[in-house]
C-alpha cells in the first residue's frame, strides 16, 4: 500500500474483479493466488475462460503458475532486475506509451536512463529467466490492449518491498496500463478486510480514508473537532518498529486485536521474548492464541464474520455490509463494545455505541466514504470507494483522472521511481546454500489459528518441500525428517518432493507453528517504509539426520 500511495496518492488496488474477468493479459507476480487467494482466483479463472493470457512470475511453479500460459521461474528477490529488464526491452523497442508518459507522468527520462543497463542478457544473468522469455513477456505486456499486474507477498515480504511494488507500477506507467477499464495494478489481499483496516486508519501514518496524519492539516483538524481531542501530527510505529521499540524499552504496553505475532512474526523466539518483557499486554481475539497465552488481560471477542454488524472492504475497494447472524458464545463481546467499555474506564463515555453510529461518524470525516449510507450499501450490493456523495455510483477503477485533459481534473501526475536491484539480505553461502521461501497452502490460513480446528483432506502438515533433484542428490526420501537450519535457528521437518521447485530452492509454510516453527528460521530484515519482513528469502541448509526420527518432531 505504501508503494501505491507514494505513486498515486491512494493505497488500493486499482481494478475491479469484473475487470479481472475482462482483461487481456495478466502478470501475476509473486502470488500463488490459487492457494492463497482462492476467491480472487475464481475471477482469474473467469478471465482465463474469457480468453485472458496469464503470465505468472514466481520462483516456484505453483498451482497458479500451472494455470498460466507462461511461467517465469525467477530467482528469489530478483523482481526488480526482471521489471527493469522488461522496462528496457519495452523502451528500446519503442513500445512504451509516449503520449501517456508525457501527459500523466513525471521523471521518465531519469527512469529510462536507470534501466538502460538492464539488457535482456543481464536480466537473464540475474533472474535466471532466459532472455528470450523476458523479451516475449515485455512485448506481450506492452502490446496488450488491456493488461493488469497483480501481486501478493512474493513482492512485499522482502526487505525492499516498496521498491518491488514501485518497480511494477513503473511498468504500468510506462505502457499506460493504468486508469482504464481492464488495466491496472493490484495487490491481492489475504483477508476480507485487509483493505478495510487501511481504510479505517489502522495504519501508522493515515487517518481514516487515507488522510495523512502529519501533512493533511485540514483533515486532522476535522478529526480533532469531531473527537474533541488533539491529535499528535506524527506517524506511529509500524509493526516491526513496535518490536524495535520494545527492544529499546520505549514501548512497554501493547493492545493486540486479532493478531498473533507470537506465531506469525519472523525470528519468533525473539518476538516471544519481547512480548514477555512488556509491562502490560492486552490481547483481544476469538481464539486463545499463543500471543494471548502471554497476555496479562485477554478480552474474548466476537467473530466479525457473523457475530457482529458492520462493514468490510475487499480487495476491489468495495465496502460491504456484514450482518450479525449469531450471538457470540459465553462472555465473548463485540469489539466495539469492548473498546467502548475501555474508553469508559479511561474517562470517555460513548454510551451504547453501535456499528452504524461509528459508520455514520466515519462518513462525516472521510470524504471517500461520504456517499456510502447503509441503505445505499444494501441497495447497490456494496460500493467501491471513492464515493464522495450520495449520488455517486462508486468508482470501478482508480486513477482515470490521470487521463483527464483538464489539469485540475487530472491532479498530480504519477512519478516514475528509479529502483535499484537489491538482492536478499540473507545471502547464500557454502554453509547455507539453499534458498528457503515461504508461503501458504489452500487448506490452511496463516498461523493456523483459524483453520487448525477444522480438518481438511488436503492438509498434510508442515513439510520442507524440495525439488526432486535435491532430494535425489542428498539421498533423501519423501517423508524423511531432516534438519533445516538458518543463521538464526533450526527446525526439523519431513521432506516433501515438489516438482514445482528447482534445485537450490526449498519451501515451507508457516501454518503449523506447533509442529514446525518455520519462523525460527526466517530473517527479520524489514523494509523501513512498509514494515514488512523478508519472509520470502532465507538462506538455509538441510542435513540428513543420522537415525530416521519416526515421531516427535520438535
Amino acid at each position: 500500500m505504501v508503494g501505491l500511495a507514494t505513486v498515486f496518492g491512494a493505497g488500493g488496488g486499482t481494478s475491479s474483479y469484473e475487470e479481472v474477468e475482462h482483461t487481456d493479459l495478466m502478470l501475476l507476480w509473486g502470488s500463488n493466488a490459487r492457494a492463497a487467494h482462492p476467491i480472487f482466483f475464481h475471477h482469474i479463472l473467469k478471465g482465463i475462460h474469457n480468453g485472458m493470457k496469464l503470465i505468472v512470475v514466481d520462483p516456484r511453479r505453483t498451482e497458479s503458475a500451472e494455470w498460466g500460459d507462461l511461467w517465469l521461474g525467477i530467482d528469489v528477490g530478483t523482481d526488480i532486475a526482471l521489471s527493469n529488464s522488461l522496462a528496457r526491452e519495452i523502451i528500446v523497442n519503442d513500445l512504451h506509451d509516449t503520449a501517456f508518459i508525457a501527459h500523466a507522468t513525471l521523471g521518465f527520462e531519469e527512469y529510462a536512463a536507470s534501466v538502460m543497463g538492464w539488457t535482456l542478457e543481464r536480466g537473464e544473468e540475474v533472474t535466471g529467466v532466459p532472455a528470450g522469455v523476458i523479451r516475449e513477456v515485455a512485448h506481450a505486456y506492452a502490446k496488450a490492449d488491456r493488461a493488469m499486474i497483480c501481486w501478493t507477498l512474493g513482492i512485499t515480504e522482502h526487505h525492499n518491498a516498496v521498491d518491488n511494488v514501485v518497480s511494477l507500477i513503473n511498468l504500468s506507467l510506462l505502457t499506460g496500463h493504468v486508469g482504464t477499464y481492464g488495466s491496472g495494478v493490484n495487490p491481492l489481499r489475504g483477508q476480507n478486510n485487509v483493505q478495510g483496516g487501511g481504510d479505517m486508519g489502522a495504519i501508522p501514518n493515515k487517518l481514516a480514508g487515507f488522510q495523512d496524519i502529519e501533512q493533511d492539516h485540514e483533515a486532522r483538524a476535522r478529526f480533532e473537532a469531531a473527537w474533541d481531542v488533539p491529535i499528535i501530527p506524527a506517524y506511529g510505529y509500524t509493526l516491526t518498529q513496535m518490536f524495535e521499540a520494545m527492544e529499546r524499552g520505549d514501548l512497554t504496553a501493547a493492545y493486540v486485536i486479532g493478531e498473533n505475532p507470537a506465531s506469525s512474526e519472523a525470528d519468533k523466539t525473539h518476538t516471544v521474548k519481547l512480548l514477555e518483557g512488556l509491562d502490560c499486554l492486552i490481547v483481544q481475539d476469538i481464539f486463545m492464541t499463543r500471543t494471548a497465552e502471554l497476555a496479562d488481560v485477554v478480552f474474548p471477542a466476537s467473530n466479525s464474520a457473523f457475530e457482529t454488524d458492520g462493514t468490510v472492504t475487499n480487495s476491489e475497494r468495495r465496502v460491504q455490509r456484514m450482518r450479525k447472524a449469531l450471538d457470540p458464545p459465553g462472555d465473548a463481546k463485540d469489539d466495539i463494545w469492548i473498546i467502548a467499555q475501555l474508553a469508559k474506564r479511561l474517562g470517555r463515555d460513548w454510551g451504547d455505541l453501535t456499528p452504524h453510529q461509528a459508520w455514520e461518524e466515519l462518513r462525516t470525516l472521510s470524504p471517500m466514504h461520504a456517499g456510502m449510507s447503509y441503505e445505499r450499501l444494501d441497495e447497490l450490493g456494496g460500493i467501491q470507494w471513492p464515493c464522495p456523495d450520495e449520488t455517486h455510483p462508486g468508482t470501478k477503477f482508480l486513477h482515470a483522472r490521470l487521463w483527464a485533459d483538464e489539469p485540475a481534473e487530472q491532479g498530480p501526475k504519477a512519478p516514475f521511481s528509479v529502483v535499484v536491484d537489491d538482492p536478499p539480505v540473507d545471502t547464500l553461502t557454502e554453509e547455507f546454500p539453499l534458498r528457503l521461501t515461504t508461503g501458504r497452502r489452500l487448506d490452511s490460513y496463516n498461523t493456523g489459528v483459524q483453520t487448525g480446528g477444522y480438518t481438511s483432506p488436503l492438509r498434510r502438515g508442515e513439510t520442507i518441500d524440495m525439488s526432486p533433484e535435491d532430494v535425489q542428490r542428498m539421498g533423501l526420501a519423501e517423508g524423511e525428517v531432516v534438519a533445516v537450519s538458518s543463521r538464526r535457528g533450526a527446525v526439523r521437518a519431513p521432506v516433501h518432493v515438489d516438482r514445482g521447485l528447482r534445485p537450490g530452492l526449498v519451501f515451507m509454510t508457516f501454518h503449523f507453528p506447533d509442529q514446525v516453527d518455520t519462523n525460527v528460521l526466517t530473517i527479520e530484515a524489514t523494509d523501513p517504509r512498509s514494515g514488512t519482513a523478508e519472509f520470502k528469502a532465507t538462506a538455509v541448509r538441510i542435513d540428513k539426520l543420522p537415525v530416521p526420527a519416526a515421531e516427535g518432531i520438535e
Partner: protein
Amino acid sequence: MDLHLTPAVASVEERAAVDELLGAPDSGWHGAERDEQTHRVARGGRAARDERHLLLPALHALQAHTGWISEGGLNYVCERLTVPPAEAYGVATFYAMFSVEERPPNVVHVCDDLACELAGAQQLCDRLTAEIGPEGAPSPDGSSTWKTSPCLGMCEQAPVMFAQRAGRDEVALAGASVATFEALVAPASTVTCSGADTAPQTWDPEERTSLRLLKRVGVVDPGSFDDYHAHGGYTALRRAVELGAEDTIREVTDAKLMGRGGAAFPTGVKWKAVAEQPVHPHYFVCNADESEPGTFKDRVVMELDPFAVVEALTIAGFATGAEQGYLYIRGEYPLATRRLEHAIAEARHRGYLGDDVMGAGFGFDIELRRGAGAYICGEETALFNSLEGKRGEPRNKPPFPVQRGLFGKPTGINNVETLLNVLEILSVGGAAYAETGTEGSAGPRLFCLSGQVERPGVYEHEHGVTLRQVIEAAGGMREGKALKAVLLGGAAGGFVGPDRLDVRLTFEDARAGGYTLGSGVVMLFDEDADLTGACLRIARFFRDESCGQCVPCRVGTVRQEEALHRIAQGRPLGSHADELALLEDIAQVMRDASICGLGQTAANAVQSAIASLGVFGRDDTDTLAGDGLPTPTEEQE
C-alpha cells in the same frame, strides 16, 4: 491446473505408446527429462488445456498396447495433456473398453444381447464357462478372459465376439464359438475381422438396380479411391460445389430429408442453422456411434462404401461452413474403423480433403475418433463431451448443438445414414428426392433385419413400405415358424405383435400409431422365443448404459430391472398389479424427467411388451415362476 499426480511412473512401453500418438514431450513439464529450461520456464495454460480432446485417443493407445491403463500410464497421459488425474480416471472408468485394473492381455467380449441370444449366445457362454473358465476369470494359461457384452452391432451374423488384444489388432468375429475364441487369443493368431457381405438385396443383379443408398455396397472396392470414383464417387460433392453452400442446403431442405438417428429432425433446417451462426469455427460431426441393440446398417455401409461417408461428410462441412469434421465411430467396429481411416487418408492424399478440397477453394478435413464402449455417446451432446475428452455425459439443451456444440462452437451432427441420403439428393435433385417415399417421409430407409429371419441383413426400402413387406423381402420367418413379435426400432423402440404387420413404416404413421422406426431395427422373435428374457435383457442394457448423471434414469433403470425380475420370478412386492403400476410410474418419470433420450426411452420396449403382447401378464408369469430363471443376483454377476 491442479495436477495432483501420484508417484506412479509409466513404463517405457507405456510412454512409447502415448508418444507414438502425441509425439515426443516438449518439456520437463509435459513428460520429458527435467532440465535447466524446465526450472525456469513453463508453457502451459490454454495451449496445454486445448489438448484435452486427445485424452480418449491417448487412453486407447495405452489400452491397445498394454491391455489396460495403469496408474503410471494414466499419470503420464495427464502430464502430457494437462489433465488432472482424478478427471482422467473418471473418464477412463466411464468407458467399457478401458480397464484401470490389470487383466489378461486378450479380452473377448461375447455378445449376449437380443439377436445373439436368439442365435444361442447363452449356450455359447455356458460352453465358454465350461471350457475356458467363468466370465471374467483368466483362462488357465492366464493369457485371456471373456466377458458378456451388449450388442456388438453384427446382429446379421450372430452370435459374435469382439476381441481386445494387447499389442495386436482388435478383431470382431461372426459365428462365434469356443473354437473362434481360441483362434482369437492364440499367440500366432491370424484371425481377421469378419467383413460384412450381407446386404442381401445386392445379391440379385435385378433387385440391386433399385437401390439408392446401397447401390455401391458389394460392388465397389472399399479400399480403392479410384474404384469409388469410377462408381460415381465425388459427383455429389462436385454438384454441391457448383451449387454453392446456400443452394446445397436448399436442395437438402427441398428434399425434406429428415434425420435417421431417431429424432427425425429436418436436416436442411439443421444445416441452415449451423451455416448462419456468426460464431466461428463451425464443426460438423458424423455420428457413427451406432450402438442401438439390433442396429448394424451404418457399420455395413462404412465397411463396404467408406468413401461415400467421407464424401457426404465433406459436403455437410462445405454447406455449413465447417472446416473441421469429426467422424465418431463406435469402438467395437475395428474393420469399419480401418476402412474409414484408409478412406480419409486416401481422400486427403488425392486432394479431396485438406486446405483446398478438389481445388474448389474451400478447406475441410476429417478426424476419425473412436468411441470406447458407451451407448450413451450416440446421444449428440454426450458424443461432443466424449470428443472433448470428457465422460460421455449428455448436456442440457438448450443451448442446442447448432448454437453451442463441439468445443462450444456451432456444430452440425448427422448419423451415417442421414448423410448418405445427401449423396442421393444431390444426384437426383432435392425436389425429385422429395417425391419418393411418402408425403411426410421422403426417400429411402435402411432396415436392419435380424433375429429369427430367413435372410438377416441390411435392406433398403422406400418409406411407406409395410412391416410385412420388409419381413417378406428378407424371406420371412426362419424355418417357417410363426412370428411372436417384432422388436421395431431397437431397444429404445418397441415390440409389435403379429397383428400389426401391416403398419406402414413412415415417420407420420409411426407417430400416429405410437411406435417408432428408431434406428430401423426389425428383429423377429418366433413362437419359441423368450420375450420375458428379452425384456429383462433390455432392462439390463439400459441399467448398464445409463450414464448416471440424472436421477430419473440412474434410479429408474435400476428399479425397472428389479421390478421385472420380481415379476418374472413370481415374487412381486405387493400384488402383481402393484408392480405393473410401479413400472408405469417409473416409465413416466423417466420419460418426463430424464435429460436425454436414453432415459426417456428406457421403458419403451418393456412397456410395449406389457401393453401389446401381454408379457409379464398374470398368466405369463405363473408359468415363468418355476422356469429356472436366474435370480437377480446371479443375473448381475
